[in-house]
């Protein structure tokens, strides 16, 4: 079987390899240079464009600032109004409507119950009073905690959260039952 016989001399083969290496490296270097030049040009153009936009924005900002400075009195007046508006909004939103709480308490109180004193603070109130009998007191406590109580303010159905019956005593001279309860309420329901 006849094989290929390379008759090119060894020195010529080396020379060919050298030439090929030179050509390849030159081509790669030139392509790389071309890519670098393109990238640099792109960066140069983009940066220049952005700097122009910044310069235009600066001019516009300077012009707007001038116009705003001319309206400084209006701005001060607006800021004053805005600040008070925000404070008042917060104050109104945080103020509980105790009139509604008192009305709800009164509606849930039967005629047999007399409140002698009421001490109200944020979130709780101490109530002392008297009733004709123990059942009336139990009914009063149940009414306060009744989440389905009819006749009251629909928004305040769950306003009273807990009721602690601290003391109950029978006053023999008047045949009345005196009581002292601590009622906790959800004050967020009383806010606007």
């Amino acid at each position, binding site marked *: 079987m006849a094989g290929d016989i390379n008759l090119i001399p060894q020195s010529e083969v080396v020379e060919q390899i*050298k030439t090929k290496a*030179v050509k390849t*490296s*030159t081509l790669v*270097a*030139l392509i*790389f*240079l071309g890519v*670098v030049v393109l*990238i*640099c040009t792109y*960066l*140069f153009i983009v*940066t220049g464009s*952005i*700097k122009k*936009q*910044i310069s235009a*924005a600066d001019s*516009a*900002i300077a012009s*707007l*600032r001038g*116009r*705003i*400075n001319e*309206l*400084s009195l*209006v*701005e*001060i*007046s*607006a*800021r*004053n*109004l*805005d*600040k*008070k*508006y*925000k*404070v*008042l*909004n*917060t*104050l*109104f939103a*945080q*103020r509980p*409507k105790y*009139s509604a709480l*008192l009305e709800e308490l*009164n509606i849930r109180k039967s005629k047999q119950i007399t409140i*002698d*004193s009421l*001490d*109200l*603070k*944020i979130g709780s109130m*101490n109530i002392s009073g008297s009733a004709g009998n123990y059942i009336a007191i139990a009914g009063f406590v149940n009414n306060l905690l009744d989440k389905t109580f009819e006749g009251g303010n629909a928004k305040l159905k769950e306003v009273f959260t807990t009721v602690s019956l601290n003391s109950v005593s029978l006053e023999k001279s008047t045949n009345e039952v005196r009581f002292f309860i601590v009622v906790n309420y959800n004050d967020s329901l009383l806010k606007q």
Partner: protein
Amino acid sequence: MKSGENKKPGLNIDTSKIKGILINFVVSLVASGLSLLLIILIGYPYFKNLSHIKEDLRQKEQLKRVLNDKIVILNRLVDFKSVVDEDSNLVNQVLVNEAEVPRLLDEVNQIATNSGMDVTRLSYSYGGAETPDVSEGKQVSYSTVSIALGTDSSFEQLVVFMKAIENAARFASVPNFRYAATTTIEGESKLGGSFSIESPFLLVKSTAVTDEPVDLDISSQNFVDFINMIKGLKFYEFLNPNIEVVKTETPTEEVTTPQE
């Protein structure tokens, strides 16, 4: 060995071969050098700077938008100057600039008497500064006048009084109160009430800050609703400037300790 072929001791470099290589690769070497130079002088610095100037542009565009919006808001405020002045006047009556204690006491006295109560005690003191959490992390401190009010009334009158306080134009709140059944000299059964009433006052002195936006939008529904709500409140005239009052050094403590 011939004397002319004597080699010098040490490193023996064949410079002609190096020269040959350099001549063969001169184009690629120059191209690589130029590429490196371009990268060092232009590519890297511009690339590094690009994100900064992009961020700079973004901030300036944002500032431009803010200022543009601000101009629109300010121009609208100029167009509706009379409305703004009227709204400011209303708001200043609800949250007054100064304590105006006599006016406040007169208002409380009017509310109590109009509700049918008998005023038995009326004193005031200056409360501490309060700092509510207004919005967006901005906090505004205001001072308060604390009033201790003693009354004789019925339960219904007490409720009417609480409603009137809640509906009064000058903002006031009742953080705590108590009442107890008492019998008058005439034998009449009454509720003796003690109220702690607080009313804030705030002097606002804003300055014009060109680059900060003005949030106020007088045409927004929230603001319109707020102003309408204020207009629905009851404004009291100052009837009795010489009302008798007692100034206390510290806020009057009216609350009893709960006996839980």
